[in-house]
């Protein structure tokens, strides 16, 4: 706390922090766990995220999305750790934002086309166990994983994801589009391997 802050002000600050930031600790933990893939590292990331958020709380604009602000801090900490370990590689080739939404033949999900005869509503997704779903998410390139977790698991809007990751909204849409398709394919391959769904024939894939 700053030495200039009086007791009641400090109490009020802590109350607001609890109500707007601490309330998201489960979400921050999930996000950290998906980024790091390791509970111990996730625990440390959560602690460091909240300490930094508390120290910088005066810079937070009340009423804005505290969850995405916490995710921003958490992801920056994670990327810095990776960089320090000199293991970071740019894992995805960024495309033009104009390519972010499906066009032409891409409008129809090719996996849906391949499975539509046997399973048009994607029931095979439900047959896959949680551990395998989580493993598939954690295997995505970091840029895709972050976008998919922020959007599909935590429900953040595109604009907040863009701000948290420092990229244009078009790039967020592109990452979501490609990340989801990649993840769906991995889950489908696993479902085929486990016999939950029959593999598509060549005719179905070409349909």
């Amino acid at each position, binding site marked *: 706390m700053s030495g200039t802050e009086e007791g009641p002000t400090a109490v009020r600050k802590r109350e607001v922090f609890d109500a707007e930031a601490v309330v998201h600790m489960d979400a921050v933990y999930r996000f950290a766990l998906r980024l790091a893939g390791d509970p111990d590292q996730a625990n440390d990331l959560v602690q460091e995220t909240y300490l930094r958020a508390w120290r910088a709380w005066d810079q937070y604009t009340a009423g804005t999305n505290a969850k995405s602000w916490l995710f921003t801090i958490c992801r920056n900490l994670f990327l810095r750790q990776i960089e320090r370990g000199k293991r970071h590689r740019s894992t995805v080739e960024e495309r033009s934002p104009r390519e972010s939404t499906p066009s032409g033949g891409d409008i129809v*999900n090719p996996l*849906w086309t391949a499975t539509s005869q046997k399973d*048009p*509503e*994607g029931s095979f997704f439900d047959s896959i166990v949680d551990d395998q*779903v*989580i493993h598939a998410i954690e295997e995505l390139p970091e840029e895709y994983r972050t976008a*998919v977790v922020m959007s599909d698991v935590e429900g953040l809007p595109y604009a907040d994801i863009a701000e948290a990751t420092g990229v244009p909204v078009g790039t967020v849409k592109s990452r979501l589009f490609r990340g989801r398709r990649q*993840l769906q394919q991995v889950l489908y391959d696993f479902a085929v391997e486990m016999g939950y769904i029959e593999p598509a024939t060549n005719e179905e894939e070409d349909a």
Partner: protein
Amino acid sequence: MIIDWVRKLFGGQPDGVTCEESLRLLQEYIDGELDHLTASQVEEHFRVCKACWPHLNFEERFRDRLRRASERDCCPEEVRARVLAAIDEVED
């Protein structure tokens, strides 16, 4: 009502948006990123178009699976306590 039923049965297209437009807007529709009018038109299309609604079902089922698999992960109580204690220390 009867018209809706006939459209759904035979995969006809309602007024507003085409099948191609609905499929192109599918991701943004599910993500709640469309303006109210467009979202209503797309919603109506998926409601009555027999050809398109399985695509919506497929994508929603996929997202639902991701959410359910992640729900089990909650911040452990000891971590929560450690974080709050660390903030208290900074406060002091």
